[in-house]
């Protein structure tokens, strides 16, 4: 990798419908971009490229960015949009800095789930109209198929699944930006209604409203803008087959590919030892275990041990989702970039009550598509 690229700073809304429901997507973008510029002391004239990330489906209008690109300060600027997964918008901005044509880039992502139909309504449109959509394949159904396969193959207990939800909602209590902040018991999780058996309502990530902005720059610019730059050490992304039946939903091959690429770039050989914390994109409880396995934190089928032994708990050896993760906060397209923002706050030592002590290396992971078909892995370090 030629030249180093840093994250200068980040800004987020207080996510969730109760706080920001009555604001427009444009309002939310304006709020986070303004805050980020104030924090970093740069003016909008200093920015040449602004990458936005949102979804036409979620916004209910084509060219979703036309409604807020100016709120990101992008009037007459070089401002492309990355649809569906904002972690890829981050990767795109990273490559723009690496190209040498830009020394700073802003990435901003937004979704207001409170304005849109449900996650299932929308993700059903991700399925083809011939074979998968008519038989009901959408995000939650796919997560149920994947979860049941995990339960059958590895004899996963209901309690371990519930513990993942308990951990994430509880971690969210320490995160002032999180949406669903709850102190639940295992029985409460298992007592919530069945959504996609074996998954219960509290095991599946519902939507949120929110926006997030991240400023990245070349090393030279970062040195002037912040005392605590966070370095982008490695990135990788990969996509699995489209048809669910073509995949082994427990092999998560595209996550394995994505993480191998990111680890190779960043010199990580022993992820469990070398990584201090991870922010992962778990749209269901079982997915958090699968992502542990795909990220190389443990062997196949052993993700449950990390939960049982408290390894990924707030005080464990490798905390996962100190922010509360996607179960707690899910402004759909923005969730990937929120993982980056949260990992950045940890590495800057600015994560407040959710701070993991002495964090030096962190992972931000994002996924998109049924049962995690596309994955992005970003390794950050201080």
């Amino acid at each position: 990798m030629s030249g180093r690229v840093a994250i200068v700073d980040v800004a987020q809304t207080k996510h969730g419908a109760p706080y920001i429901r009555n604001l427009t997507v444009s309002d939310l973008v304006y709020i986070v971009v303004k805050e980020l510029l104030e924090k970093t002391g740069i003016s909008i004239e200093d920015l040449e490229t602004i990458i936005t990330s949102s979804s036409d489906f979620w916004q209910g209008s084509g060219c979703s960015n036309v409604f807020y690109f100016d709120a990101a300060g992008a009037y007459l600027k070089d401002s492309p949009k990355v649809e569906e997964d904002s972690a890829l918008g981050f990767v795109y901005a990273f490559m723009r800095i690496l190209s040498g044509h830009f020394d700073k880039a802003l990435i901003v992502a937004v979704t207001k789930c409170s304005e849109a139909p449900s996650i299932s309504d929308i993700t059903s449109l991700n399925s083809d109209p011939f074979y998968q959509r008519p038989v009901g394949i959408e995000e939650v159904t796919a997560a149920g198929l994947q979860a049941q396969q995990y339960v059958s193959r590895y004899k996963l207990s209901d309690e371990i699944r519930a513990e993942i939800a308990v951990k994430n909602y509880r971690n969210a209590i320490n995160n002032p930006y999180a949406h669903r902040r709850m102190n639940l018991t295992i029985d409460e999780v298992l007592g919530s209604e069945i959504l996609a058996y074996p998954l219960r309502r509290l095991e599946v990530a519902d939507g949120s409203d929110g926006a997030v902005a991240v400023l990245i720059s070349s090393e030279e610019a970062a040195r002037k803008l912040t005392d605590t730059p966070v370095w982008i050490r490695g990135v990788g992304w990969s996509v699995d087959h489209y048809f669910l039946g073509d995949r082994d939903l427990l092999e998560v091959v595209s996550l394995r590919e994505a993480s191998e690429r990111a680890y190779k770039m960043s010199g990580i050989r022993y992820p469990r030892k070398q990584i201090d914390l991870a922010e992962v994109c778990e749209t269901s409880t079982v997915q958090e275990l699968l992502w542990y396995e795909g990220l190389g934190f443990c062997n196949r089928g052993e993700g449950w041990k990390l939960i049982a032994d408290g390894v990924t708990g707030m005080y464990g050896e490798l905390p996962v989702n100190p922010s509360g993760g996607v179960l707690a906060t899910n402004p759909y397209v923005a969730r990937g970039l929120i993982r980056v923002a949260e990992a950045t706050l940890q590495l800057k030592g600015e994560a407040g009550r959710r701070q993991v002590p002495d964090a030096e290396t962190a992972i931000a992971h994002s996924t998109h598509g049924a049962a995690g078909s596309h994955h992005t892995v970003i390794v950050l370090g201080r």
Partner: protein
Amino acid sequence: MGEEIEPRIIEGALSLPYRWATGPVGARFLEGLKNKKILGTRCPKCRRVLVPARKFCPRCFVDTDEWVEVGDKGILRTFTIINFSFVGQVRKPPYIVGIIELDGADVGFTHFIGGVDLTDIEKAARELRPGMRVQAVWREERKGDILDIEYFKPVRE
């Protein structure tokens, strides 16, 4: 700017008609369903039989070169019981979706699983298990779409 104003929400809905080409391979597969046949295509390189039929192998990136009729029976790989509603849902919840490994195919096939009493979801789930045999239940009047198979039902053999 500080003055409080009553929040206002504007409601709307989108409904747009589309006309999607199935492609020649899709057309032949769907015509097969009309005749109670499930057709796959074989990849000349990895030799896998792919269902629904494909024009090319998504793994090897070569043209498939042979049509193969696979069984309308198979084994259940995994399932989920859906107990919530969403737009465009074909069946009324609760219902079961499964991935089925059809006899003679090398990939799974997603479809409904039926013929199971769902009054108690957890009891129904205990009766379903991966590896159990299932068989297609065909629609009486078939139209050449994926719902010509109503669902797959568990069978004892």
